[in-house]
Structures are given as structure tokens and as C-alpha cells.
């Protein structure tokens, strides 16, 4: 009988510790949930999703669809400043690529051909070199090397449209360019009509150009 109060006290103590452990775990779980939710929202803030399209080719739904294309000023291969705003009134394909990107090299001749085909209707292409090498602004040797590599690519592919350097500096505004090639099709009013991530087909690119021209 004397052991009975001891046993009861042990049970009460055990129950109390269990309750405290559960509260501690719930607190940690709540904090972890909020942290993961915050990360998810941040990751999704500028990223789009691939959705099935009626034409059979999956379309990339970007948060920039239907919104003004973010403004930028970048240098071309000759060091001249080029601004997106100066192309208002034309439909523009902003094509992000890199010299090390094999799919980019495949689609470039298609883009060159389509640019020549639709230039007379008020269409232009801006090629934006996005090497992902995070060159510092004062790294003259690095920038010279980047310009040389891009220039070589431009010469080999016979690119007639402006090619701009330092696409990495506008990476965030354009949704975090993790995948290349990425193309933004912009109408004459400067609004993003559609976005394409990855290699598609010449026919698909042409249909997107026509859509941008018709808006």
C-alpha cells in the first residue's frame, strides 16, 4: 500500500513529461512548417509551371505572362548600351542563351530565319548572353573573354540581331533563368505574351512570334 502513492506519482510525472515533449515537438513542427512554406513561396514567386497545351506542345506558364516585360539596359558586343524600351512599337523575342548551351545552338538558326522573315512586320530579336559565371563588374579580363566567346558564337551562327552581354544581371527580374534557352515573346506594347523554356521546334517558335505580332 505504501508503494501506491509512489507509483501514482511516477505515472503523473511521466504523463507530464509526455505532455511537455508533445508541446515541444508541436512547436518545432510549426516552426519547420512555416520555414518550408516560406521557402516554397519564395521559390514559386518567379517560377512558372509547365501546363499541357491544346496544340500538343507543353506551354510554360510564367508569372510574367500578361505583364510588362521588365525593363533593362545592357551592353552589346561593341559596348553600346541597348535598352528594351527603345523597341516599344515592335514585337520582340528576348532570347536568353549561353555559349555552352547545345540546345541554344540548335534553335539559333531557326530564330535567325524567323527574324528575317518577320522583320518587315515590326519584329526584332534581342539575344541575351547568360553565362551563369557571375563575373564581377570590375573583372575586365573576364568580361573581355566573355565578349570574345559570345562574338565567336555570333560570327559562327551569323546572328544579325543585337546580342547583349551580362544576362545574369537581369536573371531575377526575368524569373530566375535556371534553364536555357528561355525566350520571352513581347508584344508591341511591351507586354509578355508567352514564355518558352527549353528547346521546342521552329514551328512552335514561329507560332509564338505570330501571337506576339497579332496582339
Amino acid at each position, binding site marked *: 500500500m505504501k508503494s*501506491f502513492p509512489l*507509483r*501514482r506519482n511516477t*505515472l*503523473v510525472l*511521466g*504523463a507530464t513529461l*509526455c*505532455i511537455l515533449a*508533445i*508541446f515541444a*515537438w*508541436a512547436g518545432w*513542427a*510549426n516552426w*519547420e*512548417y512555416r520555414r*518550408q*512554406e516560406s*521557402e*516554397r513561396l519564395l*521559390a514559386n514567386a518567379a*517560377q512558372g509551371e509547365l501546363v499541357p497545351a491544346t496544340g500538343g506542345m507543353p506551354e510554360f506558364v510564367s508569372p510574367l505572362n500578361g505583364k510588362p516585360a521588365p525593363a533593362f539596359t545592357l551592353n552589346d558586343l561593341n559596348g553600346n548600351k541597348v535598352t528594351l524600351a527603345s523597341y516599344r512599337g515592335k514585337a520582340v523575342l528576348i532570347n536568353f542563351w*549561353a*555559349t*555552352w*548551351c*547545345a*540546345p*541554344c*545552338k*540548335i534553335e539559333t538558326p531557326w530564330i535567325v530565319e524567323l527574324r528575317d522573315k518577320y522583320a518587315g512586320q515590326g519584329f526584332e530579336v534581342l539575344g541575351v548572353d547568360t*553565362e*551563369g*559565371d557571375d563575373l564581377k563588374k570590375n573583372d575586365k579580363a573576364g568580361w573581355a573573354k566573355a565578349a570574345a*566567346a559570345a562574338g565567336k*558564337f555570333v560570327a559562327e551562327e551569323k546572328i544579325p540581331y543585337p546580342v547583349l552581354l551580362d544576362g545574369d544581371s537581369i536573371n531575377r527580374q526575368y524569373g530566375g533563368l*535556371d*534553364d*536555357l*534557352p528561355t525566350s520571352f515573346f513581347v508584344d508591341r506594347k511591351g507586354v509578355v505574351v508567352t514564355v518558352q*523554356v*527549353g*528547346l*521546342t*521546334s521552329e514551328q512552335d517558335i514561329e507560332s509564338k512570334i505570330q501571337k506576339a505580332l497579332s496582339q
Partner: protein
Amino acid sequence: MRALKAPFVATITVLAVGAVTAHAQGVSSNSQKRALVKTDAVTYLFPEQVSVPMDKPSQVALHFRVAQGLHINSHTPTDDFLIPTNFSIPEGSGVRLQTATYPAGTVMSLPIDPTAKLSVYTGEFVIQARIVASAGNHLVEGALHYQACDQNQCLPPKTIPVAIDVIGK
């Protein structure tokens, strides 16, 4: 016995409520999935630790894995503009990389352009590193530089750490 029943029931009730509360928090590991696919194209597998005779060249097989659905350029890609896979060890680590022997790449082409050939690594691959270690325990942070793509798009070039504990005896 009846006196024990009440605290016992109370404990079970509290535990049940706690379990429901914890489950409702919905902690999930899924939030990392998209980031994982994009940032972990290549993973270093093993070894984590090697013992080698000090001051003598020793061969170490470094095992890596490329994520499913992706490929990286081999050490000798088919075109100058492609970024080769390259392993290195920093100077001053107590371990010197004498040579690195890379596997031959698999030749593939993208479905949309069968004429353009690429030399790539997919799945698991092994780099044979010939190292010379001085006496002692060296925690070496080597580096693997690579650039990954799938069949339609490419990720930026990336360097991942290759951490190995090298013991020179």
C-alpha cells in the same frame, strides 16, 4: 486500480490530442523536391575516407552519380564551346592531385538534332585520381566542375565540393 485508471486515461487522451495536433502541422519534405532536381544534378557518392602511403602516388576511385534524366559533358566534349567535367584539388591541402583519369563519355545526340553528337556522362561514373599525400590526416575539399542538361534545356555550370578524408601513413 480504479485510482490508476483516471491518470492513465488522461495520459492517453493527451497523447491522442498531441498526435492530432502534430499531424495537422503538415510538416512536409516535399518542398525540397524542385530545388533538388535543379541544384543536385551531380552527387559525390564515395569514398569519404582513404588511407594511402605517405609521399607515394596512390590511386583513388571517386564515384559520382548524375541525376536521372540529365547528362553532363564528359571531360572531352565534342565541341570547344561545351564545358568539360573537371576534378581538382586545391593547393596547400596536404594532398596533391598528380593526375585524374576520366572515363570515356557516351556518345549521344538530342532527338531534335540527331546530327549533333555529344560526349556525356549519365548515371554513375568514376574518376581515377592519382594523389600524393603527406603524412597525417588531411580533410580535403576537392571540386568537381560540370555543366548539366536534359534533352531540351541546360542548367548553368556548377562546381560541387568533393570532401575526402585522406590519411597519409
